[in-house]
């Protein structure tokens, strides 16, 4: 147990998985569209952590390159997501996701 607590690898796995779980949980239970987007970011970052670990542990560059791609896509996703949220707010004056039911019949 002590060995696990003082190992960077185990901590990395634990943090990554826990962050992913937290992000997923928030994604599912929060109603505020902004917080849902933030939770998406948490999940992406959890994956980045694992990629960095792999890159640094094996001394290869692919992990770092993937992280660069993920960060770029994440930035793009947030920009579009926030644009959509602003437009939704313009229509409904709220960002509560459960109030957008036009398509659910």
């Amino acid at each position, binding site marked *: 147990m002590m060995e696990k607590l*003082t190992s*960077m*690898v*185990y*901590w990395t*796995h*634990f*943090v*990554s*998985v*826990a*962050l*992913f*779980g*937290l*992000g*997923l*949980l*928030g994604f*599912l*239970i*929060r*109603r505020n569209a*902004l*917080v849902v987007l*933030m939770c998406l*970011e*948490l999940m992406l*970052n959890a994956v*980045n*952590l*694992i990629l*960095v670990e792999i*890159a*640094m*542990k094996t*001394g*290869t*560059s692919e992990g*770092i*390159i993937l*992280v*660069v*791609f993920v*960060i*770029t*896509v*994440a*930035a*793009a996703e*947030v*920009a*579009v997501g*926030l*644009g*959509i949220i*602003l437009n939704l*707010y313009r229509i409904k004056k*709220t*960002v509560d996701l459960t109030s957008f039911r036009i398509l659910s019949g």
Partner: protein
Amino acid sequence: MKEMIFALFSIITLLTGAGVVISRNVIYSAFNLVLCFFGLASLYLLWGATFISMVQILIYAGAIVVLFVFVVMLLNFEHSSERSQNFWIILGSGIGSWVLSLFLLRVLSNTLGASPYQSAAPTNLRTVSKLLFTQYLWPFEVLTIFMLALIIGIYLLGRPESEGTQS
């Protein structure tokens, strides 16, 4: 020593990550998100990935969360408190996330935990950029086209409506 610092920053990252999910006030969520990204950046730094760590701060903390905070302040829903979700949804999501996390942890420990260190040649920035512009040129170019599409999309989203109905 390094492992202790790593553990400390891991705990900070997890606590602030939990803060993002459980904060009632969106501003606090955003604030926790900044701290969480900082924690992650320090974890990258401890792994030795200085470039990624700095990019993490520059892009996530310096640009993305600023946009979040900007939108929160623009919409200004200080008074609109969020109703909490149905109890059964919370319970189901909690159990689902918990089980999935355990499963992922198991998979990670089995696949990566056992693999030994082979940090003979530490990743350096020069090799990364060389690979990015030779072997991974196509993904990179696709990404640029993607960004162009993104710019056009955001322009369309943010464009004031032509009828002048913009509030």
